C-alpha cells in the first residue's frame, strides 16, 4: 500500500500527537521514607549531571539512572537538562575521560528504580508517573 505524500504526512502527524498524548509524564521520585519533600529543576539537573551531590537535607544524593534508549530516560533528560540522548553521551564522555566523574548507576525499568530507592533514602530516581505508588514520593514533576 502506497499512500500519497499528504496522507502519509497527516498520518504521521496524527501518530506523533496521539503518542505524546498517551505518553505518561516522567516524575522525579525518592523513597517515601526520605525526609526530602521537594527538589527544584536546578537541583535535579545538578544531581544528574554530577555538578553537585548534595541533597537539601545535607545527605549525599545517589542518582539512579535508567537504561540508554528508554523513552522515560530520553524524556527525563530532555525536560530536566535540555539534552537529548546523544548530548548526554557527549556530556558524560567529557567528565569520564578527564577522570572527573562517572555516570550514575543505571538500572532497567521503573520497578528496578523503585527497588533501588527502597534500599537507600538518599537515592533519587525518575519513573513514569503511572508507576508511582506508596513506596515512593514525587519530589519534582517537570
Amino acid at each position, binding site marked *: 500500500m502506497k499512500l500519497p505524500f499528504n496522507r502519509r504526512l497527516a498520518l504521521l502527524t496524527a501518530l506523533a500527537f496521539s503518542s505524546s498524548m498517551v505518553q505518561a509524564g516522567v516524575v522525579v521520585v525518592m523513597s517515601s521514607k526520605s525526609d526530602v519533600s521537594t527538589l527544584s529543576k536546578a537541583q535535579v539537573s*545538578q544531581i544528574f549531571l554530577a*555538578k553537585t551531590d548534595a541533597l537539601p537535607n545535607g545527605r549525599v544524593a545517589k542518582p539512579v539512572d535508567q537504561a540508554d534508549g528508554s523513552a522515560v530516560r530520553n524524556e527525563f533528560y530532555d525536560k530536566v537538562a535540555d539534552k537529548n*540522548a546523544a548530548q548526554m553521551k557527549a556530556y558524560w564522555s567529557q567528565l*569520564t*575521560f*578527564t*577522570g572527573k566523574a562517572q555516570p550514575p548507576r543505571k538500572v532497567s525499568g521503573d520497578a528496578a528504580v523503585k527497588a533501588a530507592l527502597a534500599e537507600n533514602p538518599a537515592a533519587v530516581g525518575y519513573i513514569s508517573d503511572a508507576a508511582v505508588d506508596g513506596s515512593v514520593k514525587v519530589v519534582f514533576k517537570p
Partner: protein
Amino acid sequence: MHQKKRWVALAISLALAQTAWAQDGDDRFKLSGFGTIGAAHSSEDKADVTPDFQSNEGVGASSSTSGKLDSRLAVQLNAQFTDNFSGVLQAVSEYAVTESYKPEISLAHVKYRFSSKFSARLGRITAPLYMLSEYQRVGYAMPWARPPQEVYNYLLPMDGVEGVYNINAGDAVIGIQGFYGRIDSEKADVDAMRGIAVQVDHGSSSFRVSHIRGQVHYVTDNINTLFDTYRNLPIPALAEMAARLDPRDVDGSFSGIGYSYDPGNWFLRTEAIQADYSPSISGKTTSGYASVGFRHGSLTQSLTVAHVDSGGRELPGALDPFGLLNGAVLSNNSSRHSIGAALRWDVHDSIAIKLQASHIKNHAGSFGGLGNQQPGFLPGRGYNLLSASVDFVF
C-alpha cells in the same frame, strides 16, 4: 592504513572485553575508551599544521592528507575502591607531542571525596588550562572535528595535586579548583605550576576564569645550539639580548576566560586566553574563538571564528649581524585568524561522523604556528584545511 585497521580491531576487542566484564556484575572496575579516526587535508604544501605546538609534522608539507592531526585511541580503567575513594588510569596512542603512536599514560590518579563540597586528586591529571580543553582529546565530546587550534594547541598532562571546592548558591554551583604540579613533556617542561580556576554553572550557562603561573622550559636541539652560541658571543649587547630571549627558563603565566551557553537546540561557546612568556622568543599570545551551532535531530552544524595575536618579543634587528636570532624571533610569530564550518552527524549511539572546512589566514609576516617549513614557504599566506573524522566512545 594498516595502523587504522589494527586500531579498529583493538577497539572492537576492547568493547567486547568490557561487555564480558560487565556481565560479571562487578562494577568496582570499569573499562572504557574513546578514539578518533580522522583524515585532514591541507592546501599549504610548504609547511605542516601540527596537532600540538611541540610536534613538527602533521599535515601539509609532509603529506597533503594525513591522519596524524586527529587520529588517536585511548583506553581507560576506572576503579571505585570505596564510596569516596577512586582511581583512574588512561593510556592514549596518538601522533601529537611524542611524534609516534607509542602509547603514553595520559591520566593516572587517585581521587578522594572528603565531602559534598570538597574532593582532591593526586597523580597525573589533565592540566586544567582551558574551559573545554580538559577533554580536548575526546572528539566525541565536541561538536567540531578538532577544537580551534588558535586556542587549543597544548596536550599536556600535569603531575601534581588538585582540589575542588563546590559551593551551592541558589540555582548556581560555583566550583573553585586549585592545583599545583609539574609538566614533563618532550620539549616543554613546566616547574612549580600552580593555578586557580573558578567555574560557575547556572542552568544552561557555564562561566570559567583561570590563572596559572609556572616556570617554563622550552628546549630543543636547535634552541640549545642557537642560544648556547649567541649567549657566548663576545658581543655583550647581543649576548645579553640572547639571554633575554632564551626560552629555556621563563616565568610564564596563562590566563583564561570562557563562557558557554547550551539550552539544547543551539549553543554558543567562546574562550579567550592570554599566555605570557615574554620577553622570550615564545612571546605573549592572545587568542580567542567563538563558535555557534545548531542541532537538528542527529545533525549539529556549527560556525567558528578564531584568532591569535602573537607579540611581546624584542627583535634584535641590526644588533644581530648573523640573522639567526632575528630569524628565530620572526618564525615564532603565529598571528593568524580562521573561519570554519563543521557538521557533526550522530550516526549511532556512541559514534559521530564529522566534516569540517576551515580557511586559515596567517597575518602579514606571520609563520602562523606552522611546523616543518620547507624552502619556498612564504609567511603571511592563507590556506584551507579540510577534515573528515569518525569519533567513538566505548
